[in-house]
């Protein structure tokens, strides 16, 4: 058993099964005891367009998809052409020999294999091509055969014996061709690794599991890429623990249902993407004013407008933080990795209930769809709080002015605590009241909740040099990439540290301030056009950060950030 770190990319026409080929490959590698980290892109069109699935297989904790591709698996000419620029010099190409002839100048190792012919002639179906590819790649890179075959059998268990048989034949056709006609010319093999007992999850799966573990009892949502599968998982799970899920008529109805359920005492949540969050703005304000717990997950995608539904962007931070007419309490969290997506979702419910306000969780396309091998989430240790409840004791004041700003709640059905909640400004009893003094008190009461939330512990993570000259401030799904870039910079002698902020609003002032005090210069890398997090930081801290932004629909590579660190590094190492 030998430590490895290899990046495989599968590329081809959407509809050819590129994605499922890559997914099975990744999961099989994880079952074989390797760490995996995948990235997935596909076109928004149902048919047509270029699909890519990238899998990094390794033994260290994998923090990013890596900088370059080691093995390019090209299903067709487009997969070859679009993939080539990212293939490392001397890299390995596995391609459909029926469709691709590598350029004479290609300097790596090429394994052309007639995938199309094999599928057509030996399996009798062009649709089996992706399984042929899988069989060949597994054979070529020594992915344990039993693991692969049993995984495929398990995944297609419901498809019937005939389909199972076709799959086996296809895998075997690929493998046999490699055994019989290909001479291995590279040293790479997956074999088996030490990391057994891992689970392979996508960010969206981690969110759904986190919600379930946090005690979710009600979900309403409206389908939207790339968030739909959170609902699609929960609808299978929730009824099995007595919860309820409604596919709403739109996002406004979805959040409205969530607020109704929350008023009724449920732990309630919805999940959407940018266009849906835009539609929820008015009701988010209602939740702030009426002091209702609610969790809203936004799996961001590239905007503006419909934008690029299947592409990456951290473009909704502005909206999540500032998207409200008037001002009311709201918490915004950023999920940073697959493992963290679970934890952050759990925390979102905890904070929503404790502070009685909406909590927005920002995930994104890249995090939502990529799979990683992670330690099994600690589902049995989770005990999120529930909103503090009132006792019957004189006339009930739902919006009682307290020192913390948090007022004991009452849920319909509780005897004698009838009251009205409203989005109108109100007095302690919930009655509409506009006089300046009371209004000022109510605004201050709600704001006190946020001041308290800003002190929640553990809302940043820090790593890198203990006495840094340059500080990298990041958020959300770019955590791993930043971490990898910082580690590399540290190895190269740069005194760099990173602080990753998990609570984006209110900002954890104490921890950020302490970090800023240590560093001479600040770099804020984020996947959006203007540097939204940099702007947000500037509203609270007097800094002039270097910005590293991009909005081309792709996440950062570690090297992007590493190069920028070198560029902006304040003085010699």
């Amino acid at each position: 058993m030998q430590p490895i770190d290899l990046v495989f990319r599968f590329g081809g026409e959407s509809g050819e099964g590129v994605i499922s080929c890559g997914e099975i490959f990744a999961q099989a590698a994880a079952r074989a005891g390797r760490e995996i980290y995948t990235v997935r892109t596909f076109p928004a069109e149902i048919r047509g367009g270029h699909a890519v699935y990238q899998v990094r297989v390794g033994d260290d904790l994998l923090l990013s998809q890596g900088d370059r591709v080691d093995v390019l698996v090209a299903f067709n000419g487009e997969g070859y052409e679009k993939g080539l620029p990212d293939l490392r010099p001397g890299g390995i190409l596995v391609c459909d020999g029926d469709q691709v002839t590598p350029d004479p100048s290609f300097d790596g190792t090429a394994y052309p294999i007639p995938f199309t012919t094999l599928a057509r002639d030996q399996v009798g179906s062009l649709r089996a091509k992706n399984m042929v590819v899988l069989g060949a790649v597994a054979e070529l890179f020594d992915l344990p055969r039993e693991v692969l075959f049993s995984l495929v059998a398990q995944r297609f268990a419901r498809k019937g014996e005939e389909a199972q048989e076709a799959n086996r034949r296809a895998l075997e056709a690929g493998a046999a061709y490699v055994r019989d006609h290909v001479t291995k010319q590279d040293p790479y093999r997956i074999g088996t690794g030490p990391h057994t007992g891992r689970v392979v999850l996508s960010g969206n799966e981690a969110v759904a599991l986190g919600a379930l573990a946090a005690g979710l009892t009600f979900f309403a949502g409206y389908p939207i890429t790339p968030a739909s599968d959170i609902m699609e998982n929960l609808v299978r799970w929730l009824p099995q623990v007595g919860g309820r899920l409604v596919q709403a008529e739109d996002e406004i109805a979805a959040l409205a249902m969530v607020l109704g359920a929350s008023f009724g005492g449920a732990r309630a949540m919805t999940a959407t993407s940018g266009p849906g969050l835009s539609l929820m703005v008015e009701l988010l304000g209602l939740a702030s004013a009426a002091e209702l717990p609610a969790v809203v997950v936004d799996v961001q995608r590239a905007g503006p407008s419909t934008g690029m539904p299947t592409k990456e962007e951290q473009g909704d931070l502005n909206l999540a933080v500032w998207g409200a007419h008037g001002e009311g309490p709201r918490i915004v969290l950023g999920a940073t990795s697959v493992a963290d997506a679970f934890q952050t979702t759990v925390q979102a419910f905890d904070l929503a209930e404790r502070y009685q306000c909406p909590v927005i969780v920002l995930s994104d396309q890249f995090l939502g769809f990529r799979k990683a091998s992670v330690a099994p989430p600690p589902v049995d240790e989770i005990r999120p709080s529930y909103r503090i409840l009132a006792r019957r004791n004189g006339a009930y004041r739902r919006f009682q002015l307290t020192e913390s700003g948090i007022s004991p709640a009452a849920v319909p059905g509780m005897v004698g605590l009838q009251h009205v909640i409203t989005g109108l400004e109100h007095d302690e009893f919930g009655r509409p009241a506009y006089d300046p003094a009371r209004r000022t008190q109510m605004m201050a009461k709600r704001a006190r909740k946020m001041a308290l939330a800003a002190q929640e512990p553990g809302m940043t993570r820090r790593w890198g040099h203990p006495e840094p000259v340059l500080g990298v401030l990041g958020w959300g799904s770019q955590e791993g990439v930043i971490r990898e870039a910082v580690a590399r910079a540290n190895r190269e002698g740069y005194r760099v540290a990173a602080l990753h902020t998990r609570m984006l609003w209110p900002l954890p002032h104490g921890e950020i301030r302490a970090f800023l005090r240590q560093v001479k210069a600040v770099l804020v890398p984020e996947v959006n056009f203007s540097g939204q997090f940099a702007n947000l930081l500037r509203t609270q801290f007097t800094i002039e950060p270097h910005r590293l932004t991009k909005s081309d629909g792709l996440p950062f590579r570690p090297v992007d950030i590493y190069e920028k660190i070198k560029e902006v590094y304040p003085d010699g190492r």
Partner: protein
Amino acid sequence: MAASLVPKIYRSANKPTWCPGCGDYGVLEATTRALATLQVEPHRVAVVSGIGCSSRFPIFLNAYGFHSVHGRVLPIATGLKVANPELTVLAVGGDGDGLAIGAGHFPHAARRNPDITYIMMDNSIYGLTKGQISPTSRLQQRSSTTPWGNVDRPLNPVAMAVAAGASFVARGVSWAVAELADLIRQGIEHRGFAFIHAVSPCPTFNNTLAQIKPRVAPLPQGYDPTDPVRAFELALHTEALHTGVLYREPETIPYEERLAALEPPTVQDRQTFLQSLIDAYR
């Protein structure tokens, strides 16, 4: 509990702020009477509303109330009922709230059929914003936004409710409080989505009482409320405004019960289930 819950018990300490003569007083009175008839305890009642004069309703009731935002009363009430099926859930609001900004939710509440009673106080005007036409304003009507006369043809709430598949559709008028109370009572007792079209004039901005009163008519003799086509036909009548239960689906299972019936045979312990899920991801 005996008959100890008199209508007055369902009124909160907050005096209604409606104009004198507003139809909504009658609807409020009818609602408290219906609740008293059913002897449902105030803490088991939840009333959701949107925004509008009529939507102030929950503030004047002794019950759990949610005065929300404009147009979202039905999905909020649906979420509430699904999450807390023990409650008697009323949804209330105006014609603008329900048929303009909220029009997209109306057919979906109707087709889902949660056990909610939705009382739409229809004054054919926007009262709270001081007198603009609403979706039920008549053609040619003058208002602050139609100084040249209204060119939008009115919507027919009853016809729309029937078309959307509402399982109980009734109409009452605010000045016939006893009949209205009885319709609301039937609506609450109905197991499913009950739509009560409560004609409730606004003397301040659209005093239609004199025009409407003569047109009010009972249902025809021998009327069969289980025939949606007949209900639709009656709803289209222009000379007569029929009050009573226009449509009622004989057998209907409320949404929250359908959802509950979906569950796999045994609801599992959450921890056990979570562990099994985790294992499936290995």
